[in-house]
């Protein structure tokens, strides 16, 4: 399956979700398990994808640890400010600085 078909499949599935309850909810309501999964799916998926993306960039040299350092600083920045945007605002410059400094 090419990236084009994957994007098409995700788009089609998302559209079905959007119109699903126009047909079903009037008669049966939202299935309870679907409602419970929907509450948790976003943070769980984000944790998995962020972990995979981060680990994929780590290597054996000290400089290869720069993404990990940037991620740690990004977490601290979001914790301190409460703003999700702080992760990028602090994380990317930190990554550039660490990459330049580490051997």
């Amino acid at each position, binding site marked *: 399956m090419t990236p084009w078909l994957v994007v098409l499949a995700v788009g089609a599935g998302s559209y079905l979700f*959007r119109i699903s309850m126009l047909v079903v909810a009037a008669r049966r309501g939202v299935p309870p398990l679907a409602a419970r999964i929907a509450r948790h799916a976003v943070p769980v998926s984000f944790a998995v994808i962020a972990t995979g993306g981060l680990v994929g960039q780590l290597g054996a040299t000290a400089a290869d640890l720069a993404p990990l350092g940037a991620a740690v600083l990004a977490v601290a920045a979001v914790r301190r400010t409460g703003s999700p945007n702080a992760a990028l605002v602090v994380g990317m410059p930190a990554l550039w600085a660490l990459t330049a400094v580490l051997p």
Partner: protein
Amino acid sequence: MPVVHLTDDVGGHVAAGVRAMGPWLLGVAPFGMVIGISAAQADLPTLAGWLTGPLVFAGSAQVATIQLLDEGASPVVVVVAALAINLRLVLYSATMAPHWHGASRRFQALAGYLLIDPTLAVGVDGYEGATRPTHGHARYLGAGAALWVTWLAAIAVGATAGASLPAGRHLEMVIPLFLIGELVPRLDDRTVRRAAAAAAALALASQGFPLHLGALVAIVGGLAVALANEPSQEVSP
């Protein structure tokens, strides 16, 4: 089937929807640009990344799709992960169903396509204040159109900028950092914290799985931990 008459000042309600969407646009435009930059930097056709905008029209699922395709994940893994993120749209659909009941099929088809977090918020607010359903419909479509145009334009701007940026900027870290920013504030909830920790640990442990099937295992495992750790519902007398 409700009919929208010109005497209903449809334009005024559409404009009200556009205005109501204004504050949301300030927040989603940078997000759209991040997605565009990521699409340009990822190992997939930039147009395919941009097409996630009009076809998926849901930022988080677009991020997951682009990131996992870039990592070479199995198509099944990409589709399941993105649709898991978008499962909340079923709840949004249930929320809007009473307001759209009886509207034309054409309106329902278009309104459903535009359904996402900002249009849900603006739409529900509009229907609650509307004296006629058609006024709420017009307001919803105005808000949705403003969001749609801004979103696609922001992704295009990001994709154009991302393609022209020099190598060595480590832009592949944009998505992981973005996800960290979205995840960390949610960790105040104990259930989310445990589920995210379990999912991340499973993602680490399953790095060697073929076709990135480990991502699927980690998502399912994280969801199982979340469901097992939900606070019990107290029954009121």
